[in-house]
């Protein structure tokens, strides 16, 4: 087994709340954050979403942003999480200046584009948001806010973006190319994505039921989460929250949006992550599954899990029913949840589950479980066949 890359800070913003504490409390009390859209300007008010109930204006005021700024909602959500991560890693301004930022985002600031699209030509007022559509701009805004001057980049692999950003950060630390980096992902609810998933008929009108025989689609969510990764030589007496010891990335190469029946991409990503970690499959204590609650994903992922673990399948659950599917942020949110699992020896409930699917008969954790754990596997899969698995471990 390798020592892995140290995580010294983390922060999260989701429909469960702002910050680690409120998210953890919700997870412990089985209290989901799914509601109907109130802030998102959509006519699909019947579709449940994991919406963060604070307006952009409210967030801007708290951050005391100057008038005429071009932060979009994804950037605002990211700033709250990074602030928390930076605070609990006790990074100073100089350290921030020299470190890197790798952020995952799928739609960046398209919420601004959909708001101003038909007005850009007639009015000059909001033209500063033209470039804000692009995810790279979102990341530049975030690094500008924190005055981060090191290696900055954006990964956009749909719903595995955040996980890939974490993987890239870990690789950069491991190879010595960077010694300190913030990694994670952010995405906000938009009409674009809500309608997009709706046309694919994979949104549920009920609370989503991951891994359930009667699952009928996902709930979209919004949020952000970030981790601070540091090279061992910088740690000194710093508290290490956990370590990233494995990562694997593969492509399903099956279909632009659907997962293959054999879960090949998911299988290869998990296999590679386990290989990199140096663990035996029996040493994985728990899986924070991708588990979106679509017919297709949950079956494909279950089959891939069976292929990896055989008859010794670890306990697993999907936390998507708590937060909704936060797209590019999902892998980052679930990285934070995985570390919370390890820190507290808790396996979170897979909410809304009633009956195992016929094909696999796999039952997720349905009530909060307390059990001693060393290693947690977290899966994130996306459109374009992009599959990524991460393995987190307790420090030491």
């Amino acid at each position, binding site marked *: 087994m390798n020592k892995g890359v140290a995580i010294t800070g983390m922060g999260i913003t989701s429909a469960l709340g702002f910050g680690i504490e409120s998210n953890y409390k919700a997870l412990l009390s089985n209290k989901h954050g799914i509601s109907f859209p109130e802030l998102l300007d959509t006519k699909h008010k019947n579709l449940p979403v994991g919406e963060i109930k604070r307006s952009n204006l409210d967030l801007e005021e708290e951050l005391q942003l100057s008038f005429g700024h071009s932060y979009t909602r994804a950037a605002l959500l990211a700033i709250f999480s990074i602030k928390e991560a930076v605070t609990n890693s006790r990074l100073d301004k100089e350290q921030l200046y020299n470190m890197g930022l790798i952020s995952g985002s799928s739609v960046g600031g398209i919420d601004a584009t959909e708001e101003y699209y038909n007005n850009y030509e007639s009015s000059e007022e909001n033209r500063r948001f033209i470039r804000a559509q692009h995810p*790279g701009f979102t990341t530049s805004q975030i690094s500008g806010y924190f005055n981060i001057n090191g290696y900055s980049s954006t990964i956009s692999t*749909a719903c595995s973006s955040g996980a890939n950003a974490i993987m890239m950060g870990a690789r950069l630390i491991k190879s010595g190319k960077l010694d300190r980096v913030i990694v994670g992902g952010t995405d906000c609810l938009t009409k674009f994505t809500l309608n997009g998933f709706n046309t694919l008929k994979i949104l549920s009108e009920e609370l989503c039921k991951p891994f359930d025989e009667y699952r009928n689609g996902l709930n979209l969510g919004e949020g952000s989460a970030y981790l601070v990764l540091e090279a061992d030589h910088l740690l000194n007496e710093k508290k290490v929250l956990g370590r990233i010891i494995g990562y694997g990335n593969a*492509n399903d*190469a099956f279909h632009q949006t659907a997962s293959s029946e054999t879960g090949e991409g998911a299988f290869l990503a998990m296999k590679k992550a386990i290989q990199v970690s140096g663990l035996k499959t029996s040493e994985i204590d728990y899986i924070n599954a991708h588990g979106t609650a679509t017919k297709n994903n949950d079956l494909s992922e279950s089959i891939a899990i069976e292929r990896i673990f055989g008859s010794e399948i670890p306990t697993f659950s999907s936390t998507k029913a708590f937060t909704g599917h936060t797209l590019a942020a999902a892998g980052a949110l679930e990285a934070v949840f995985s570390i919370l699992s390890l820190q507290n020896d808790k396996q979170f409930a897979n909410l809304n589950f009633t009956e195992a699917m016929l094909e696999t008969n796999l039952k997720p954790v349905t009530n909060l479980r307390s059990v001693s754990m060393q290693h947690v596997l977290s899966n994130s899969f996306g459109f374009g066949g992009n599959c990524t698995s991460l393995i987190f471990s307790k420090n030491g």
Partner: protein
Amino acid sequence: MGKAVYINGVSGISAQTEDAIFSNKPLEYSSNIFHAVPVDYKDLIPAMALRRMSKAIKMGLFAAKNALAYANKTMPDAIITATGEGCKQDTEKFLEAVLDQEEDLLTPTSFIQSTHNTVGGQIALNLKCTGYNVTYTQEDISLESAFLDAILLLEEDPEIKNVLVGGVDEVSTKITSFSYLNNFLKQKEIRNLDLFDQASIGTITSEGAFFFSISAEKNDSNDVELVEVCKFKEKEISNISVQIQQFLKKNNCSIEEVDQVLLGKNGDQIQDRTYEHLENGLFMNSATLVYKHLVGDFNTVTGFAMWLTCKIFKNNVVPDILKLNSVSSKDPKLALLYNLSQDNCTHSVILLRKV
């Protein structure tokens, strides 16, 4: 730096062709937004599939397959794609439908193909490549990010021998035209070849796809060594030269040893200040070349500059239309590519060597 990395195969689709450039008869355009020269996509992509593909997907897939073929490879171990603005045509189509139809009666195809990783995913799907697959999108340094990942993969993972890396950006009707409104594009329409003749704000733009099959192995004499790719942030103009010199020093060479410098000058008055500072300073005695009067400026345009450098090395000719000064560069072997991002403080530096 770890072991040497080579470009074994390269393919580019742009608003120019190799013939047009090397015969010094570049294609001329009279609009500030122009398109890539059509190629026979059917040669490499089934007609059925082509019908549904946006320009970005077609260009990307075609260039990716061609680059692999030139490298005599059939299957890469990893695919890393870069795009600054993603699949704008499909994004625009779906977004307009959402707005115009007030979220009603929408169809999924354009949404499915709107994500930034569509091109990377389609390449994997077409090649049936299940290896590492990531898409970077970081404005003007998207392709640089992709190369940094690719080089790291070759260094760290013994199972990864060859990586397909490329950048793609397309023009779309409305979203690209917004660039007139935020002064990215010149307000007055100009001819592309006149780009450097007038001082004004803004530039011109087009589209393209540039793919590279890279590995740690030298295949043949046409291979080009990818010495290093670097991006850095620097707000002070006077410090840029210092950073570039440090970059060269790190790679055991000096500006005197560089045979040609490709500048990403784009005709924008504000960007010119930085370029002119370098032209009159660090690059004063270097043979300097420019290329954005041929293809305009867009987020992954450094892919064009890399493609062009590979062609200059291969043909052993520097077309006159590229020359910015009279310093001659016969038989160029070492090329420095410098590009300034739209934010005016992010810099890209790439060093390529003929083998």
